[in-house]
Each structure stands twice: as C-alpha cells, then as structure tokens.
C-alpha cells in the first residue's frame, strides 16, 4: 500500500518519505527497546527492593510473632511509611491468621481484604507489585509477611520515558526532514534538471538542447546518454525534414499531375468509366457521373452493371465480361436507362507493367439521337403503311359498294320491268282462280287442292314481284310519330307464325316516340320476323326487345352521326346461326340461303332502315341463334 502511495510522489518526496519512515522506524524501535529495558530493570529493582524490605521485616518480626506482640509488629510495619510506594503490608501468623497490618493513610482497603498467604516471592497483579515472604525463626517458618506496592513510579517513569521517546522521535524526524530537504537535492536536482530538459525538448521539439552533467554517477551517465540520444534525434530530425520537403515537392507534383489528369478525364464530353476485374468502378468522369446522377466519389466501388443497368449481374452483351475473357478490346451497342439513351460502349484493357489485365476503360458514345432518328423514320414508315392499308380498304369498300350499287341498279331496272310485265298476268291468273273456285263449288277435293296450290304460288310470285318492285323503287319515307310497341304489334298481326314458335314480345311501353315511316319500318320488321321464324324450322322462342340508349353507351358500329339518343330494337331467334363466311354477304342483294327466295329481303331491310335514318346490324353464334338489331334515332 505504502509502495502504491510512494509511486505517485515525486522523487524528492519519495526520498524524504522513505528516509523519514526509516528514521522513524529506527527511533521507534530504539524507543521501544529502551522502554522495555527500562521497564524490566525498574520492575526488577522494585522487586529486589521490596524483597529486601520484606526480608528485613521478616527478620525483625520474628520476636514479636514468637511472643505474640502484635503491637510491636504493627509498630514495626508502620516504619514502611517512609516508602511512599508501599500501600499496605501484613504479617500472617503460622496458621495463616493476620497478625499485624499496615495500611497507608488514604488507602481505602479493608483489613479483611488482605489476601491469604501465598507462595513466597514477588508478583505483579492489578497494577500492583505484591510480595509474600516467609518469616523464619531458626529453621521453622513461623509466619508470612506480605507487602503490596503500587507501581505509580513505574508508570510515571514509563510515561516520562514514552514522552521523551515521542519528543525524540519528533525531533529526529524534524531534523531528518530539514537535512533531507537540503541533501536530497544532490540526487533529485540532476534528475529534475534532466526531466526539465526532457519536457522542454518534448514541448518545443528543440533537439539542440543539452542536459547538464552534474556528477559521474548513474544520473550523470543517464544525462550523458540522454544528450547522445538528443544529438541523434537532432540529426535524424534534420534528415527527416529534408526528406519531408522532397516528399512534399514530389507529392505536389503528383497532385498536379493527378489534377491535370482528372481535369482531362472530366473534360471528355462522352461518359468514361474505369472498372476493375470484378466489374467494380474505379473511376468515372464527370460526364458519366452526371449521366448516372451520382457524384464521381459515390460511383467508386459500385458494380458497373449495377450503376449503369441497375441489375445484379452483368448483362449478356457485357463487353467488359468479353474483355476479361480474352483481354481484347470490345464494343457493344447498348440501351442504358440510367444513362438515358443508346450508346456504343468501347472497352479497352488496362494493363499492369507486366502486361496483366487489371481493368478496363469504358468509353460510351451517345448514339441516342441517331437512334431516335432511326426510330422516327421507322415510325413514319409504319404510319405510312397503315395509311396505305386504310386507304386500300376504303378503296376496296368503295369498289364493293360501287359493284353493289351497279348490281342494284341493273337489278332495279330489270326487276322493275320484269315485275311490271309479270304483275298484270299474275293478277289475271289470280282472278281466274277466284272465278274457278266460285263456280266449281262442287268440284272434288283434288281439284280444289290444286286450285289452292296455284293460288298460293301466285301469291308467292306476287310477293316476289312486290319485293322486286320495292327494291327497284325505294320511295322517300312518309315520316310520322309512332310508338315502337304499336309499330311492332302491327307487324306481328300481319305475320303468320307456326304453332311451334313462341313469340316473346318484350317492348316496354314507356319508350319515347320515334319519327319514321311506319309502312316502311313495318316491312323491315316483317322481313326480320319472317326470317327468324324460317330459321326455327324445329320451333323455339322468338324474342323481340327494345331499349333506349344514349350516345356514348352505344356500340360504335351503330352510332349515327348527329344524334345522341337512340332506340334499339332487336329480333332474336334460336336457330342455328349464320356461318361466319356468310356474314359479310348478308346484306348484299341476291344472296340467299333459302330455297325459295331471291335474296332481296335483307337488302330491302337495310335500304329502308337507312332511308329512315337508322342502321341495321347482325350478331350470330353458330348453334345458338342470330340477333338483328335496328337502331333508330330519336328526333330532338
């Protein structure tokens, strides 16, 4: 512990403390020895003294004891008054009874408290020195004398000795301290001086200082050694300073070269990147950094494919990979989203002086504009082709329409004249049949049957002729405001529907009124319903529905320019549907799939609907049925 405390002290104090401790310990030991010796010798002398007193008293008390003269014995004991140490004394008879006593005045002890006689000899007990001494007459022990002495003198002596020792200790320590304070300098002064020089050296870095050499002892050689070291450091320092100046110059040159290189690097307009063998970016120029949108410093260490393509591994076309494989220059045309366009990337290897590839320079030339030009040319070409296609189609349609119109025109003229020419004979034949039936009321059934057949066929022919005439002479519509349901109901009443066909009329009565020629429209719906019924030879449900639609919701095919609200009327059969290849030809004149028909029905429907400002469309699914939809505008 003391060693720990000492460690923290200065040498000066260490020396003083150690010396003072040693001095103190020596003085302390000397004092203790002295005290112990004094104590023992004084105690021995006290004992001797008391023993001789006891022996004298014993000798003198023989007679009084023998002759039982207590008074004399007491008187004799009272002579002990002269010894101030003796507190009490007693003479015991042979049988142990107290014969005579002495008690120093002021002693409180009672007679009864005298101890019974014990073995002869002195002993110390309870701060007192006791002695028992046998009283011998001739050879016979006739009694015992007891004397008790206090040890106040011994104690006070010890205290005096102790005080003297303390004072001596103090004096010795003070003197030692004074002397040590003066003499320790012999040892500490050179050390402190050395320490001061060391501090100055370490603070000012002045290695030209010298420590004074005071003596030829260890401290002297320490100072000498220190001076030699200083000298060496000074020389080394000078050398270092020269080296530092040279290095700084070299570093400055290097820095300038580097800056120049970097300026050049950054001055290149095209993005340039240097990457190592692990695809890690070593450096990018300003153009590259700007393109990537990061600072050149941040780009360092990134994987080049990550920075440029945003992928976790190199792309298949990566020229860097190719270069690492064969060590040759490569280039690739790439689209890099991070760089914002198309580039031709050339990579050329970077070689160590030993010719080993340690990376590559990527030089990217922006070909985005060229690419964009190419792209726009391509797009223009496409647009042009599209336009040509569209125009061709229009032409084809127009041609088709023209053909149709031509057909219609010829057909119109032909059917007009044929119809006109056939109408009158048919009327005559019809009248003739009527006549025959009315005069031959008793004719047999077969005759009647055949007459009916003729009549039926004449009707058919008349209808065909009517169609032909309708077709040939489309009259301008006589527009009236009508209700859709009334229009459809009127149509249905004129149609003959077989029993196996069920009509489902779902026209709501709340629909707005439309402005059409009711005669013409009724003919349209009659045709559609007759077609539907004929499509369902094996029976089924014929559904007629209508709805009110607004412009934007309407199927674009059926939109009629200039109108926003329409009525859509659909006629749906449950027949076998129409073959896709026939769909196109449906509305062409003279196209029919029916055995008895000339293929003008739907043509007439289309013409009439369009004449009333509407459109007609068809949807069909094989095996399920066909829906014809007539769209008519609602007038403002």
């Amino acid at each position: 512990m003391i060693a720990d405390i000492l460690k923290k002290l200065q040498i000066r104090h260490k020396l003083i403390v150690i010396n003072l401790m040693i001095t103190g310990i020596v003085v302390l030991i000397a004092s203790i020895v002295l005290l112990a010796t004094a104590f023992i010798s004084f105690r021995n002398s006290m004992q001797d003294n008391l023993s001789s007193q006891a022996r004298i008293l014993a000798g003198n008390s023989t007679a009084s004891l023998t002759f039982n003269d207590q008074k004399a014995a007491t008187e004799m004991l009272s002579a002990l008054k002269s010894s101030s140490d003796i507190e009490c004394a007693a003479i015991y008879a042979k049988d142990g009874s107290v014969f005579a006593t002495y008690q120093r005045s002021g002693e409180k002890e009672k007679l009864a408290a005298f101890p019974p006689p014990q073995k002869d000899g002195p002993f110390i007990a309870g701060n007192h020195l006791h002695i028992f001494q046998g009283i011998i007459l001739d050879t016979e022990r006739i009694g015992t004398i007891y004397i008790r002495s206090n040890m106040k003198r011994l104690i006070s002596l010890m205290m005096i000795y102790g005080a003297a020792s303390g004072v001596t200790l103090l004096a010795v320590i003070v003197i030692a301290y004074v002397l040590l304070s003066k003499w320790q300098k012999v040892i500490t002064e050179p050390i402190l001086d050395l320490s001061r020089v060391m501090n100055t050296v370490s603070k000012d870095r002045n290695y030209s200082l010298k420590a004074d050499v005071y003596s030829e002892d260890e401290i002297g050689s320490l100072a000498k050694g220190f001076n030699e070291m200083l000298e060496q450091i000074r020389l080394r320092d000078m050398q270092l300073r020269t080296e530092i100046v040279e290095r700084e110059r070299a570093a400055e040159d290097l820095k300038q070269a580097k800056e120049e290189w970097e300026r050049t690097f950054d001055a290149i307009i095209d993005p340039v990147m240097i990457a190592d063998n692990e695809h890690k970016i070593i450096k990018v120029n300003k153009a590259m950094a700007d393109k990537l949108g990061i600072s050149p410093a941040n780009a360092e260490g990134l994987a080049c494919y990550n920075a440029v393509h945003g992928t976790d591994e190199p792309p298949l076309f990566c020229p860097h990979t190719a270069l690492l494989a064969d060590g040759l220059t490569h280039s690739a045309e790439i689209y890099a989203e991070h760089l914002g366009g198309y580039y031709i990337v050339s990579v050329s290897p970077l070689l160590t002086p030993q010719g080993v590839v340690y990376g590559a320079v990527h030089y990217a030339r922006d070909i985005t504009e060229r690419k964009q030009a190419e792209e726009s040319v391509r797009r223009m070409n496409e647009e042009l082709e599209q336009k040509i296609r569209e125009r061709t189609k229009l032409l084809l349609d127009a041609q088709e329409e023209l053909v149709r119109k031509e057909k219609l025109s010829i057909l119109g003229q032909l059917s007009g004249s044929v119809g006109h020419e056939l109408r009158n004979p048919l009327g005559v034949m019809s009248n003739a049949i009527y006549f025959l039936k009315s005069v031959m009321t008793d004719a047999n059934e077969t005759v009647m049957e055949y007459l009916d057949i003729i009549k039926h066929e004449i009707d058919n022919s008349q209808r065909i002729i009517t169609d032909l005439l309708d077709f040939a002479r489309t009259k301008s519509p006589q527009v009236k405001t009508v209700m859709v349901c009334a229009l459809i109901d009127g149509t249905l009443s004129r149609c003959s529907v077989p029993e196996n066909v069920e009509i489902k009329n779902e026209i709501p009565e709340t629909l707005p009124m439309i402005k059409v020629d009711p005669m013409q429209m009724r003919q349209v719906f009659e045709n559609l319903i007759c077609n539907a019924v004929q499509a369902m030879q094996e029976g089924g449900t014929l559904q007629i529905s209508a709805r009110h639609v607004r412009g934007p919701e309407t199927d674009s095919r059926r939109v009629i320019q200039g109108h926003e609200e329409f009525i859509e009327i659909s006629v749906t059969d449950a027949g076998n549907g129409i073959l896709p290849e026939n769909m196109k030809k449906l509305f062409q004149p003279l196209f029919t799939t029916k055995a008895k028909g000339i293929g003008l029905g739907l043509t007439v429907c289309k013409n009439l609907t369009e004449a009333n400002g509407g459109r007609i469309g068809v949807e069909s699914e094989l095996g399920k049925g066909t829906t014809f939809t007539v769209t008519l505008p609602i007038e403002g």
Partner: protein
Amino acid sequence: MLPRLLTISTFLLAMAYSPGSIYGGEKPKPTDYEVKAAYIYNFAKFIDWPQSRFPDRNANIDVCVLGNDQLGQYLAKIEGKSTGDRRIGFKRNTSLETLRECEILFIDNSQMGKLDKILEAANGSSILTVGDTKGFAQRGVTINFYLENNKMRFEINLQAANRAGLKIRSNLLNIAKIVTGP
C-alpha cells in the same frame, strides 16, 4: 449461579456467627504457666550463650525450676524440642547447689527471700535467669514475666544479661521492657 451464591452466603454467615475467630481456633485458653513454658522455650531462640558454656555442639539447653514446681509439668512438654542445633532439656529437683548445671533457670515467686543467694550462685555461669515476680528484674533477674492488660509480657535486665555473658537479639529486646539494676 444461584445455588453457588447461596452456598457462599451460607458459608459467610457461618463464619460471622461462629464463636472465637478465624485466628483463634477452638483450643482452650492456655494457662499462664503454659504460656510461660512456651516463652521460655522461645527465649532460647533469641539468646546466644557463650560457646564455652556447652561441652559440645549438640549439648542440650537445660531448663531448671527453683521453687514451686507448677511450671514443671509444662516444661516437661517442651523437653526435646529443638532450637538451632540444640535441644531443650528439663532438669527436676534443682537446688542451689545444682543450679549451675542449668542454662535457663526459672526462679519461682517462693524464692523471693533467697533470690540474692541464688543470683550469686548463678553469677559467672552464663545462666539465663527467668522470674515471674514483680521487682525480680530490678534485683538482677535477666528476664521477668509480668501481666499487662491481661497479656503476658516480659522485662529484660540488660546489665544482668551482659554480666552473664548472654547475647540477646535486638528482636527480643524490641518487644521487651528494658529495666536496669542493681
């Protein structure tokens, strides 16, 4: 603890009420003659006779009584006791003629009239004369018993002792009353 305390207090009580004292004991008080006989024996311890008084080193110290022989029976009891190298002897039927053979001569009260003759007879023979009659010491008896406060004391005539060539130790002189004469 309690039983032990009880024992001690019982013992102390017994001590306090017992007759006599711890010094005395239960013996009957000795008669004057018994005391005198013991004293006479003890005198021998404090008195030195001249060497020429004894024929050899181990010769007895003979005690004789002149007169009433009441003391004799007690003296007989101390016969044979030793003092130093010697023993106490007791001689009976001592007469004026034979008293010179004695070392210690007790002179009874009854010999008051013949005292001067007896002392003359003893003169020059280093005899320790002992009496128990008032005035004997002044008349030349070396040691004379007397009672003081009912306690046996004795007086010594140093001149007589010196005449007889007896050396009495200071111890003895210290506790005795010193008388002079004749």
